[in-house]
C-alpha cells in the first residue's frame, strides 16, 4: 500500500519539478500527487482569491490539475517552469469562472484578507514562504497606478478593455500601463533575488 501522505513518497522526493512532470506524462500517479502536494495549496489560494467561493475554487483547482495530468506530455520545458504552468492554468480557469459567473469581483488585495486561513504547515513550501514575502514586498513598492492595474487584471480578472472602461483610460494607455507594471514587477523581483523563472521549491534542478 503506497503511503499517500503528502510529501512522503521517497521515490519522488529527490526529483525536480521537470522530472515530476516528465513522469506524470508517463502516467505516474505518485509524481502527479507530489506536484499537487507542492502546488495545490498555492493554486487553491489563488483560485479562492479570484473566485471567492470555496467550492468553485476547488473545482477550478481540480480542473487545472486534470489539465496538467492530461497535457503533461505536451508541456515544453523551453516555455518555463512547471510551477508557472500550473499557476497559469489555475489563473486562466479561475478568471474564466468569474467572467462566466459574473461574480462580484474582489478588487483590492486587502479586501480578501478577511477570509485568510491559517497557513498550511507544509515543510516543502519553505521556498514558497520566502517567495511570498518577496512578491508582496515587490507589489508594495510598485507605484499605485501600476499596482492597481495588476490587481484588477490578475486578481479581479478584468480584461484590458474592461480595465479601459473602469479606469476611464484609452485602451492604448491600459496596454502600455500593464506593460510598464509587469516590467517594473519583474525588475523588483529580480532585485530581491527572486527569479520567477526558477523553481519555487527546493528540489534538485
Amino acid at each position: 500500500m503506497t503511503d499517500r501522505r503528502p510529501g512522503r513518497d521517497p521515490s519522488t522526493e529527490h526529483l525536480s519539478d521537470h522530472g515530476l512532470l516528465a513522469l506524470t506524462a508517463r502516467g505516474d500517479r505518485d509524481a502527479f500527487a507530489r506536484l499537487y502536494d507542492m502546488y495545490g495549496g498555492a493554486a487553491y489560494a489563488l483560485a479562492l482569491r479570484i473566485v471567492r467561493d470555496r467550492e468553485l475554487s476547488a473545482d477550478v483547482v481540480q480542473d487545472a490539475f486534470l489539465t496538467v495530468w492530461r497535457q503533461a506530455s505536451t508541456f515544453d520545458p523551453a516555455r518555463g517552469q512547471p510551477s508557472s504552468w500550473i499557476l497559469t492554468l489555475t489563473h486562466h480557469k479561475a478568471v474564466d469562472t468569474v467572467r462566466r459567473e459574473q461574480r462580484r469581483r474582489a478588487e483590492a488585495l486587502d479586501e480578501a484578507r478577511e477570509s485568510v486561513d491559517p497557513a498550511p504547515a507544509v515543510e516543502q513550501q519553505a521556498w514558497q514562504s520566502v517567495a511570498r514575502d518577496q512578491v508582496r514586498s515587490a507589489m508594495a513598492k510598485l507605484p499605485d497606478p501600476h499596482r492597481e492595474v495588476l490587481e484588477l487584471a490578475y486578481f479581479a480578472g478584468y480584461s484590458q478593455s474592461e480595465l479601459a472602461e473602469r479606469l476611464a483610460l484609452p485602451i492604448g494607455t491600459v496596454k502600455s500601463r500593464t506593460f510598464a507594471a509587469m516590467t517594473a514587477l519583474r525588475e523588483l523581483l529580480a532585485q530581491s533575488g527572486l527569479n520567477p523563472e526558477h523553481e519555487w521549491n527546493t528540489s534538485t534542478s
Partner: protein
Amino acid sequence: MEHVDELISGYALHGLDAADERLVLEHVETCERCRVQLREMEAVAAALAFAAPQAEPPPELRERLLEAIGPEVVPSAPPPPRARWSWWPRVSAVAVPVLGLAVIALAVWNISLRGDIKDADVRSVAPIANVGSVVSFGGGQATVVGGLKPAPAGHTYEAWVIPKGETVPQAAGTFAGGNDTSFTLTRNASAGDMIVITLEPGSGGPAPKGPVVGKTSI
C-alpha cells in the same frame, strides 16, 4: 515584423480579447525574442499568485483528484508528442533520477578521498525531502548531499541535529546550497538522530527561525 511586447503583458494576465490573443500566438511562433519575453512575463504573472492570501485546500480535493485521473494501474502512456522547440523532456525524465544517484556516489567518493574514511564506513544513506540525502559514517560524521537551489539573498541554509529522544535542535552549520551541495555537518550525529535543514534569515543562528526545508532521521 513588429514585436508585441505590450500585448504580451496583457496575454500573461489573461486579459486580451480574442483578436489580440491570436496576434500574440501567431507572432511568437516565429519570433524567438518575443517567445522569451512571453515566458518571462508568464513567470512574473505566476509569481503574483503568491501575493494571494494563503488558504488550505479542502483535504478531500486530493482524493477527488486522484480518483478523477483514473485507476491505479495505468496502461503504458501514449508516446508523448515531440515538443516543438525542444528535445529535452526525454532527457530530463531519465537524467534526473540517474543524476540523483550519481551525485550521492560522487559525494561519498569525494569524502572517502578527503580523509581516511573508507566506503565501508558509510553507515546509512537516508533520503531527505527536497534536498537529496544524508550520508552518515561510522565515526558520527554526517554529510548532506544533493541539490538545493542557492539560498535567496539575505538567507542561508542551516543544518540541525536533534539527538534521539530529545527535542531541541542543535545547530550544525550553515551552507549556501547550490546544485552540487555536499555539506558535512559541524556536529556528529548517530543512528536515530533527526537531521533538519531550514532556510534561515541572515546568517543563521543558534536556534531555528526559518521554515523547514527537509528533515530525516538517520
